[in-house]
């Protein structure tokens, strides 16, 4: 697969999809560019991690950590809640296709594939959730470290 097919097209599509959802979720004009960029960054992160590690769930978790750190960074810059950037950033990773496949197997009564696909869907969703939580923790830790250093400098 060429570089364009493997990297440029997916990342571009991820960004466009994120842009669409950002508009649907009423992200303000001021924040639209950076919320879209978040989706692109997270998906680029996922592709890179997957190329190195080759494990879907670990790559998803790491990419979500990246998404969360990005979101918290932007939240600091724009003084908004981190959700404003975290939700759009995870959009390309949301297991919509896997979730649909799972339920389609259920409707068709194919329980073997339902179980396999269901585990995959839940795993992806859990990986995103864990990544976001870990990313949020990293942000808080850094916040405390900065505060502690500042307090030390001010002699408190």
């Amino acid at each position, binding site marked *: 697969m060429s570089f364009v097919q493997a990297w440029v*097209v*997916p990342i571009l*599509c*991820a960004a*466009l*999809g994120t*842009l*669409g*959802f*950002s*508009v*649907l*979720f*009423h*992200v*303000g004009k001021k*924040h639209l560019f950076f919320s879209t960029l978040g989706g692109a960054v997270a998906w680029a992160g996922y592709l890179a991690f997957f190329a190195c590690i080759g494990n879907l769930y670990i790559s998803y978790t790491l990419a979500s950590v990246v998404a969360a750190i990005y979101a918290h960074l932007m939240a600091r810059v724009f*003084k*908004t*809640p981190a*959700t*404003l950037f975290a*939700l759009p950033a*995870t*959009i*390309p990773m*949301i*297991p*919509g*296709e896997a*979730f*649909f496949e*799972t*339920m*389609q197997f*259920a*409707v*068709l009564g194919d329980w073997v594939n339902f179980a396999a696909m269901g585990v995959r*869907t*839940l795993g992806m*969703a*859990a990986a*995103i*959730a*864990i990544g*976001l*939580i870990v990313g949020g923790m990293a942000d808080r830790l850094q916040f405390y470290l900065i505060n502690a250093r500042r307090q030390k400098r001010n002699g408190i």
Partner: protein
Amino acid sequence: MNHNKLLSGMLDIGEQMLCCGAEISRVEDTVERIGLAYGLERVDVFTITSSIVVTACFSADETLTQTRRIRTRSVDLERLNRLNALSREICQNKPDADTLKAQVRAVLSQGAFTVWLLYGASALIAGAFTVFFGGSLKDALVSAVIGVLLKKLMTLSIRFHLNSVVSNVLLSFAGGAAALLALRLGICDSYAKTVIGDIMLLIPGITLTDALRDMFYGDLISSIQRLCEALLFSSAIAFGFVLARRVIG
């Protein structure tokens, strides 16, 4: 100050934050913070996706409880941002209860959605995800048109207060049928790739992810509620698409 009204104002903010997609923990945290900023002795907030209960202890012999029932939620991040800014301002300035309620109302009246933008966004999402999952440009175009159609049907089903499970089945059936029709006419290359973009528009994938996040945070009731909601709607959607294929394909 009228304590009843103050508590009601605090709940207004919490309720609206929950309605526009804030996490449970953020809502609880915000309402508690506002209460403590007003010098309340103790504030207990319990939130699930469909309800908020706040008990505020104003003094040793005055404790008030109010609850709100949340029925509809739709993600509105700009409103969430404004409510968040407002809650910070309230914690600093501590306006009286009437001003607080007026400020919340002011936030709610700002910034409505632009309708054509929503259609554009739906088309963009459907088209982008079709290419994302390996569809051709022709598929993406058809998917985008169906995306606009689905958005229109979504608006209609909300206007006519259609049961949400029924409306999900109908929407998915319409989406699947339209894609099959396009395939018959030879406008698109692959049925599966064409519908995947529209599925992304409908499927409650974010609800599923939120459910798991709530679970890890320990908000188990909300988590289970969201999980059930996601399973219910996704099976309705899968049923709609399978039905379209059985009837037409």
